[in-house]
């Protein structure tokens, strides 16, 4: 037993491959937050008056709120006045440009990250919105999408060009006062993605946003709003990375999804923010609020996430199942290594009749990390015939990490059915011995076993992402067996 643990502990030495910094001239606000800063931000973005009012309302509410302390994570107190709330690469106009006009340094950055914007445009058939620090730098495939009636643009553009849609839905799923980080985001969000899929349209391609934090001492506060109108379908992917820095950086995003009657939204995330070094220095604080409202009957919202990065993760992609027969799904792989801490899970709020939800969570802990699943399944009085299935599996690698499960169930309806299964296992010495006896390297063996453990979640990812996710796990575990 001792031998495998030792090997595994050695396997946990890895290099973060997206840790480079792009040298580009930026306009960056001096650190600090007050109403003037928000007004300046809103001004730069040429926002209408109502938007500024909305932000200020959120800010005033935020000032009265307390930072949550219930999560199973520990981190030094954040000084919100030491963060810069806006940083953008210098350019002529504050508009996402066509690819030809984008600074070549930026294009190179995305190429290095494996997101060659030009090629993606030509080959992969995936539309990308690339967000660099506080702004969207490019959005591809806008025209063919527009032909299908799909709006895919940065949220800044949407505020200017589609104010009626934004006003109707922004903040309806995650209101100002929802929680501390959502409040902060509402006040200072700088950019993000907006998607609207009209009635009866099946979005002709995968949509994706790639988030990159570059500048030091800045926070990234993106806001994403996706609306699927009646009978429509959209699949959306997001990916994220950041440079290696000794200081922690804050990422406090809000994602709101709205599905009307018979609409479906599939939202997939591969999160690979810089996790900090082997000693736990640096890394991103990922405090994110993601929630989908299945308002319409027969609507469906599906979250799939693969979380391998960030120093501290606090994230619970959730579904509010209001419409009759609406469906919520949450498929998650969360891997923590070294000193990473994750407190992640989901909330399934059943309000409508015959609503159903599925939760499959796979937590993998290695190194000295801590990995917690926290989930709430709630049935309101009107949730007649509603049901949930939850499966929570934890896999431990080595003997210095921790896995925790905090499931909460609240039911106000007697007809609701809930099933919960939970397992905790280790990569066993016997499994390792079998693989090695067949000539397989210990590292490859761990990676194969971990990938097998995650299979149920990976199969939910779009093909291209599934491959990426598998590779990412491999890199994340690199060096954990000697």
């Amino acid at each position, binding site marked *: *037993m001792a*031998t*495998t643990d030792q090997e595994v502990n050695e396997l946990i030495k890895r290099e973060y491959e997206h840790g480079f910094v792009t040298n580009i001239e930026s306009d960056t606000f001096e650190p600090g937050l007050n109403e003037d800063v928000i007004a300046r931000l809103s001004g730069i973005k040429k926002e209408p008056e109502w938007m500024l009012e909305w932000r200020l309302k959120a800010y005033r509410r935020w000032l009265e709120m307390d930072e949550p302390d219930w999560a199973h994570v520990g981190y030094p107190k954040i000084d919100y006045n030491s963060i810069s709330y806006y940083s953008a690469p210098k350019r002529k106009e504050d508009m996402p440009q066509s690819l030809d006009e984008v600074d070549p340094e930026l294009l190179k950055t995305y190429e290095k990250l494996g997101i060659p914007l030009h090629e993606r445009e030509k080959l992969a058939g995936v539309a990308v919105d690339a967000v660099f620090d506080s702004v969207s730098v490019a959005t591809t495939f806008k025209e063919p999408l527009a032909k299908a009636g799909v709006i895919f643009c940065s949220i800044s553009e949407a505020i200017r060009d589609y104010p009626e849609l934004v006003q109707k839905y922004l903040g309806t799923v995650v209101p100002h006062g929802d929680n501390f980080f959502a409040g902060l985001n509402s006040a200072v969000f700088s950019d993000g993605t907006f998607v609207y899929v009209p009635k009866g349209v099946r979005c002709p391609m995968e949509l994706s946003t790639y988030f990159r934090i570059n500048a030091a001492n800045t926070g990234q506060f993106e806001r994403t709003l996706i609306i699927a109108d009646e009978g429509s379908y959209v699949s959306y992917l997001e990916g994220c990375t950041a440079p290696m820095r000794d200081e922690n950086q804050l990422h406090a995003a809000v994602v709101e999804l709205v599905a009307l009657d018979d609409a479906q939204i599939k939202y997939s995330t591969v999160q690979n923010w810089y996790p900090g070094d082997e000693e736990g220095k640096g890394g991103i604080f990922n405090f994110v609020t993601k929630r989908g409202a299945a308002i319409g009957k027969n609507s469906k919202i599906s979250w799939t996430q693969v979380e391998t990065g960030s120093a501290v993760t606090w994230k619970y992609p959730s579904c509010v199942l209001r419409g009759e027969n609406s469906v919520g799904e949450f498929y998650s792989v969360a891997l923590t290594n070294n000193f990473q801490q994750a407190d992640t899970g989901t909330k399934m709020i059943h309000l409508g009749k015959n609503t159903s939800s599925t939760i499959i969570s796979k937590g993998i802990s290695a190194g000295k990390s801590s990995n917690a699943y926290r989930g709430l399944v709630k049935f309101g009085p009107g949730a007649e015939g509603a049901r949930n299935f939850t499966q929570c599996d934890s896999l431990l690698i080595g003997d210095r990490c921790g896995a925790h499960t905090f499931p909460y169930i609240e039911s106000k309806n007697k007809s609701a059915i809930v099933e919960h299964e939970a397992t905790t296992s280790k990569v*066993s*010495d*016997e*499994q390792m*011995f*079998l*693989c*090695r*006896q*067949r*000539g*397989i*390297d*210990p590292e*490859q063996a761990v990676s*194969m*076993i971990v*990938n*097998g*453990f*995650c*299979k*149920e979640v990976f199969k939910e990812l779009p093909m291209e992402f599934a491959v990426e996710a598998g590779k990412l796990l491999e890199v994340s575990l690199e060096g954990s067996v000697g």
Partner: protein
Amino acid sequence: MLSIKNLHASVEGKEILKGINLEIKAGEVHAIMGPNGSGKSTLSQVLAGNEAFEVTEGEITLNGENLLELETEERAREGIFLAFQYPVEIPGVSNLQFLRTAVNAMRQHKGQDEMNAAEFMKLAKEISKQVDLDPSFLKRGVNEGFSGGEKKRNEILQALLLQPKLAILDETDSGLDIDALKVVSDGVNALRAEDRAILMVTHYQRLLNHIVPDYVHVLAGGKIIKSGGRELALELEERGYGWLGIKDEEPADSTAN
């Protein structure tokens, strides 16, 4: 091919093997028999390099190379194969993926090109027929939900795929009904070759009716106390281990795992 000299090994400080000497030449089939607790399984595990066992004295060489200096996976690549008594499950990892990874690890070691998925699929299907496993087993998780007999056949399938120099079969007959025993034995007999040695570890002689050994050794108290030909096994069957003055305790083999 394999030479074991004065091998002592212990687990958790308790000495199990107390001076084993054994020479096996290419082309030979050896059977190691013995009552439960005699150290049979320990010997298999030590040869394969299970790090739960500590070798305290003696040497093991394979074709002149010191095995004790090699890691488990390096021994495997040099041609040591162990068919497990209790094959472990690896949920979610398909048998096909596992087998292909293993075969390619060996090929890479020999400087051969990796086999692509299609080539490998064809080969794996052929061999699974040979051990009477439906090809659908290739798509299932490694040993996941397999019956005892299916697990054993899956082990022989792996031996046939990997073509080792020395195949060690640890109680491969245990838990098999007579039909399954026949299938597994046919598989093992197909492995017999001029340049390959087979070491069978078994409690019962019935396996040796199907796979006829060249030599039989009796292991007791961590030492080989008697060696002979095929007839030794028959005599043991007739007269019991008591004949050699050994107590045959029925409880499960305490040295396994």
